[in-house]
């Protein structure tokens, strides 16, 4: 059904296709500038413009998705040369299966978050809409670019906008978290720059594909430096991907941010993961020497550590927003952990898992906002319970003496009707729990099952000890996530009396409903999507097609620049 929709969109914009690749960057940028020019005064116009821009971005993303997804051995890889200079001299944008997928999920989450923000959050400070657009621009650019330094630039765009959105609404908690978040990211950016510098210093080029091409020719005594550069880059990116021990900033920042902002932030960690995945598969994985093998193990171990820490912290916290942030961390860890194995099927499952968890966690952030609003309205309970909260597992009541289960000593044997609003929230919450914990019948289970099946070696491949470790950790983390979230759900939804029925604006339920619908869609379309992600993973692990596609692209010959027709030039 999504496929048909995207196909329809694809036909509509067929003539624009070549330029479509740059659209996900340009549209939000133009929108941001226009919204800025409109000024904060005219709220209605702002909202309309912002939503329109997001809708168009979504359409473009889906069109790209439909475009790159052709069944067959050679993938469609859309290469775009801004400023029209030959590879490798100009900057290159590339939309392959992976990029298109990330763009699509970004657009979906962004649209829902924006709609949600329209209800209340947009008014918490100035310039929300322009900055939101810039945020999306940065994310999209990072997913599209195939140039190391340009990646740095777009990551900076993304981060700067995220600083703004995190601080949106100000207040002690946000500013505190913001300071940490910014400091960490500035240091990370410095490392990023160092890494890029070293890679340029050794390879003499910045285009990702070009670097990948030149790597085999690098003399052995230079490789050390190259890997050192890669390591610096890696630390910077892993910090953005929220991998332990570089992720302490995450929970405070994400739980302090305004709900729609937090929902979008879920994508930021995915950008980190995307960059790691892209560079790892392009540069290091193909080398397959002792250093890169070591690197792979390090990735797996760091990922596992992240999942474990996230699970432990989950047990120790009960606030929904904190749990959502921890779920983000958990999925980030899972993704990085399976990245190190270099199996296409596994990676395909992981990408499918990425879709599900992203949607679920984003939903959870939005839900948390509504739930806590309702709760604060009912019982004066405050939303912010940190690690100091009473033990979450030990039940608030003393264990009853055995056998005292006698009805005339208990509450009436009559159920309490659940208000429709609460029922809605409850259902959405259950969906999130099932996805995050990877339980049936939703996509989370299919993804976890796929990954586990590969890890235990259903394709006859012997399982490494690391593989077993991942299996155990995944299962335990699922259990913890399930119990912790359910316990929290019980606390929020199964309150005996004095429940305050939350007043939900339709505009707030709409995005949640949309996200839940999305979850159902990817569950129903599990088979096709898994096929898509597996294909994407296969082409990632064998980057030759990617490299060829980029290297083979020539600039458009032009009247004032005749030699561009000749292409190449000094090389």
């Amino acid at each position, binding site marked *: 059904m999504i496929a048909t929709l995207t196909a329809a969109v694809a036909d509509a914009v067929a003539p624009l296709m070549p*330029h479509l690749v740059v659209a996900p960057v*340009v549209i939000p940028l133009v929108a941001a500038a226009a919204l*800025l*020019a409109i000024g*904060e*005064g005219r709220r209605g116009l702002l909202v309309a413009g912002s939503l329109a821009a997001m809708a168009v971005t979504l359409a473009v993303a889906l069109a790209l998705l439909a475009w790159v997804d052709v069944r067959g051995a050679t993938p469609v890889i859309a290469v*775009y040369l*801004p400023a*029209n200079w030959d590879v490798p001299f*100009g900057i290159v944008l590339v939309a392959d299966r992976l990029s298109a997928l990330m763009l699509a999920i970004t657009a979906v989450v962004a649209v829902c978050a924006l709609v949600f923000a329209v209800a209340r959050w947009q008014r918490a*400070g*100035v310039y929300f809409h322009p*900055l939101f657009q810039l945020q999306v621009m*940065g994310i999209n650019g990072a997913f599209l670019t195939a140039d190391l330094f340009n990646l740095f630039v777009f990551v900076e*765009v993304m981060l700067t906008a995220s*600083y703004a959105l995190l601080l949106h609404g100000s207040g002690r908690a946000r500013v505190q978290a913001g300071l940490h978040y910014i400091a*960490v990211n500035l240091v990370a950016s410095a*490392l990023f720059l160092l890494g890029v510098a070293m890679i340029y210093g*050794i*390879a*003499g080029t910045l285009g990702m594909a070009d670097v990948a091409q030149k790597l085999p020719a690098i003399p052995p005594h230079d490789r*050390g430096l190259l890997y*050192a550069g890669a390591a610096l880059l890696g*630390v910077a990116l892993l910090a953005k991907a929220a991998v332990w021990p570089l992720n*302490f900033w995450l929970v405070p920042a994400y739980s302090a941010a305004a709900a729609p902002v937090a929902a979008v932030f879920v994508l930021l960690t995915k950008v980190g993961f995307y960059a790691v995945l892209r560079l790892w598969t392009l540069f290091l994985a193909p080398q397959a020497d*002792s250093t890169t093998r070591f690197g792979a193990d390090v990735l797996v171990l760091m990922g596992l550590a992240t999942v474990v*820490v996230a699970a*432990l912290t989950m*047990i*120790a916290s009960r606030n929904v927003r904190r749990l959502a942030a921890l779920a983000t961390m958990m999925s980030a860890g899972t993704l990085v952990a399976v990245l190190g194995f270099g199996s296409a*099927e596994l990676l395909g499952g992981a990408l499918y898992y990425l879709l599900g968890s992203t949607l679920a966690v984003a939903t959870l952030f939005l839900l948390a906002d509504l739930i806590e609003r309702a709760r604060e309205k009912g019982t004066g309970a405050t939303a912010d319970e940190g690690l100091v909260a009473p*033990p979450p597992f*030990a*039940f608030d*009541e003393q*264990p*009853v003496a*055995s*056998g005292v*289960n006698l*009805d*005339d000593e208990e509450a009436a044997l009559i*159920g*309490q009707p659940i208000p429709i609003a609460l029922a809605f929230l409850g259902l959405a919450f259950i969906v999130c729990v099932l996805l995050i914990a990877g339980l049936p019948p939703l996509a989370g*289970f299919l993804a976890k099952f796929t990954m586990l099946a590969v890890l*235990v*070696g*259903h394709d006859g491949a012997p399982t490494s000890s690391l593989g077993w470790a991942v299996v155990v950790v995944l299962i335990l983390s699922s*259990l913890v996530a399930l*119990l912790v979230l359910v316990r929290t759900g*019980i606390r929020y939804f*199964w309150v*005996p*009396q004095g429940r305050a029925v939350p007043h939900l604006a339709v505009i707030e339920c709409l995005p949640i409903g949309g996200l839940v619908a999305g979850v159902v869609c990817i569950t129903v379309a*599990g088979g096709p999507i898994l096929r898509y992600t*597996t294909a994407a993973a296969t082409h990632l692990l064998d980057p030759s097609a990617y490299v060829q596609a980029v290297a083979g692209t020539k600039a458009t010959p*032009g009247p004032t620049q005749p030699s561009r027709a000749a292409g190449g*030039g*000094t*090389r």
Partner: protein
Amino acid sequence: MEIPLVLLLPFAGSIVAALLPTHARSAASGFAGIVALATTVLVVRLYPEVHAQGAIEWRQAWLPALGVDFVVRLDGLAWMFSLLVAGIGCLVAFYARYYMSPDDPVPRFFAFLLAFMGAMLGVVTAGNLIQLVFFWEVTSIFSFLLIGYWYHRRDARRGAFMALAVTGGGGLVLLVGMLLLGVAAGSYELDVVLARGAAIREHALYPVILALVLVGAFTKSAQFPFHFWLPRAMAAPTPVSAYLHSATMVKAGVFLLMRLWPALAGTEAWFVAVGGAGAATLLLGAWCAMFQRDLKGLLAYSTISHLGLITLLLGLDSPLAAVAAVFHTMNHATFKSSLFMAAGIIDHETGTRDLTRLHGLFRAMPITGALAIVASAAMAGVPLLNGFLSKEMFFAEAFYLDAHPVIQYALPLIATLAGTFAVVYALRVAYGIFFGAAPDRLPHAPHEPVRWMRVPIELLVFTCIAVGVAPALVIGDLLATAARPVVGGQLPPYDLALWHGFNAPLLMSMLATVGGFLVYRSLGRRLGSAGLDVAPFLPIDGQRSFERTVAGVDRAARALVRRIVTRRLQPQLAWMVVLATAGAALAVAQTGLVWGDRQRVAGTFAVAALWSVGATSAVAAAWLAKFHRFAALVTLGVTGLMVCITFVYFSAPDLALTQLVVECVTVVLFLLGLRWLPKRKLGDASERSPRTRLRRARDLAVAIVAGAGLSTLSYALLTRPAPHSISPFFLDRALPEGGGTNVINVMLVDFRSFDTLGEITVLGAAALTVYALLRRFRPPREAVALPAQQRLSLGEAATDLVAPREEAAALTGYLKVPAVLARLMLPLAVMVAVYLFLRGHNLPGGGFVAGLVVAIAFIMQYLVAGASWIEARLTLNPARWIAVGLLVAVATGAGAWVAGYPFLTTHTAHPEIPLLGRIALPSALFFDVGVFSVVTGSTLLVLLALAHQSIRARRAQAAARDAASPVASTTAVAALPLAVAADRR
């Protein structure tokens, strides 16, 4: 196609039921009943096919990536369970109509019930292992929701959570087990797995698989040591207990054991694990059941015990035992669910389930009583009832087993003992409740329920009797069909007769019965009442230890989290630096580090001197930054200057220029900021504490190592010959195609203009953030009060320090000369900017530098003349500048589309302009205009927003003088005029 309908109907039904109005009790139950009935009919109609073909299935592609199909597969066993699930589901739905209160929001209840039914059918009809686990977990989820249906009750919440924790966790374990089983069998398809039993038992992973699968089965079927959740689950409404916790869900575990019997059974490990757990559960359950005070508790424990019996039978590794297990499963389902329903009626009509208060009810409710008595007789295994037959089979198996002598003696003993206990708790139900002294102190006066409420029980009890009297006739064929797949297609010889002659099993039965009567006579009514309400001789209490474990895990997690998770900034940054250093070091270490052999550039004294100064000032900045911020700022500036000079020296004029202007703006910025930072006095206590010293030493070490690493890397790279870089291309094309001689600028606006676009976006975004944040800025308390030196100065002295006059006045006063000069500077600066901008494409300069110059010029005006004076005379709207700049830049880029070129492609026009003649007009120029505008706007926005704080602070001071608290005054601070300007447009 009917097969998939078996699954589809209940799920579809549950969705419909969920949409019914809140109090539509009859409608909801009626609907649920009909759905269940329809499903039952479907199942029944499939019997001939199943009977004939052995197994029928319906297939649908599901996860092609892993070659997993969605297979609904009905063989005898699956069919028998489907019948139980659907049939009893139908009766329960009917029963619940009368059990639930009219005020209950039943649609939710029935929706869950139907969904559960669907999930359960999914489990039993699963055609591959994954599908089985899939529905397995779904049943856990819905049982959780059903147990928690009366969530306002404490015991319901806790029972539901415990059940989910145990069964859900077990399910996850089972998932791994099934995956491994799939690996061992080479496929997830059930047929394949069942066919490859031998290969699986040989497989190296067999012990692991067995363990994992058994954990799954035992948790679900409440087998020792996972039995404790079931009694807690009794907090569910009685129909749920009758359905899930006697007939269906708890049977899923034993179903799994039967299902995989051909694949896994027949090994020592299986015998020990399954048989052992079964025996333990059998005894434990029966023992505990005797001492229950709560009627449902008693039934729960007896269920545990009977499940143990079935498990034990399956563990005995003999086909006949397996048949007996299947048989007992059916029987137990019938008599136990009828008992639960009867318990529900008693509870419903008397208002209590307390066995010490329930007695002599027969007079009040004879029919219910009769039914309950028959059912409990079946439970105790009294002849002429179905329970008797399967129990006899069990006793026979236990007696004629040939195994290790110890077991050979122990097993019959255990069996008889358990039988005795069974008789006792059966008597507590059958005799204890209905006979004895007339009932007193009951919440309600007992009476018969509505006639229809009894119908389901009557049906079930009738079945018990029918099977018990004429087994072969009633059940023989069905049992054979059901048991055949379990024993792998080859049924052992057995006959379902009532009378096998006088033999050991019969003797054991008699012993058990007599023993039971004796025990009941001696203990009788005292059972369950004070002193005997907890089963004695039990070392561990599962429920307690569960909660203790959970709490323990929680405490441990907290303790651990406190160690491994920090919310402080310093450790995070330290981690990052350390990891980066270590990573780089390791990478280099792999290949070893060699210096390059590139021709060194001769060192000059000048540079050495330059950098000795630069380095010193950097260290000085590090040294002074805590206590002498201003000095630190100056030294930082010096360092910046050195960097700048370095750029000049190494032929990077553009960098130098940019660095210089950025330096200026940054310094102004910091100066504006300094004013808000708190005073800091030298040497406070914390300075000297050893902890601080240690931390300092550590940080110093980290810094030095990292710095050393940095210089090593840079030296290593500096000494290498320049890589065959792509740069010559740019030098080559800059003039002919970029239309400019200044390669740097051409790169910024043409080759890599996409970077520049992002760069100015960052600048704009940062500026907007700064502004947005500062609108909410709350000046710190002591910063609001007058600075010390002002407070110290004589109050009367006519100085502006004490009584600051309007800036306007200041301009005519002590600031006159600077003001004039500054105003002169403005046009000059603008001119310089224009010059820099225009030459940018060919010589150092360009939009960025020009923008900063203009910004600096404006700032100068602000500095001398003061914000309000300026804004009275010219309205700047920096936000607008940013917007326009971005739009211009993008528009220039998009212009290329018109000509059919990619975004940002440049084009040089050569228009004739009067006086100037034919000039080269690259489109890049307009892009640079955009850059210029954004840079000016952003810089102004940041600096002005910061500058305005002093105005607001002054207002705050005023407010403070008016004896309002500073905090309050901050709220009084209006948004800056700038903000107004921004918002108006």
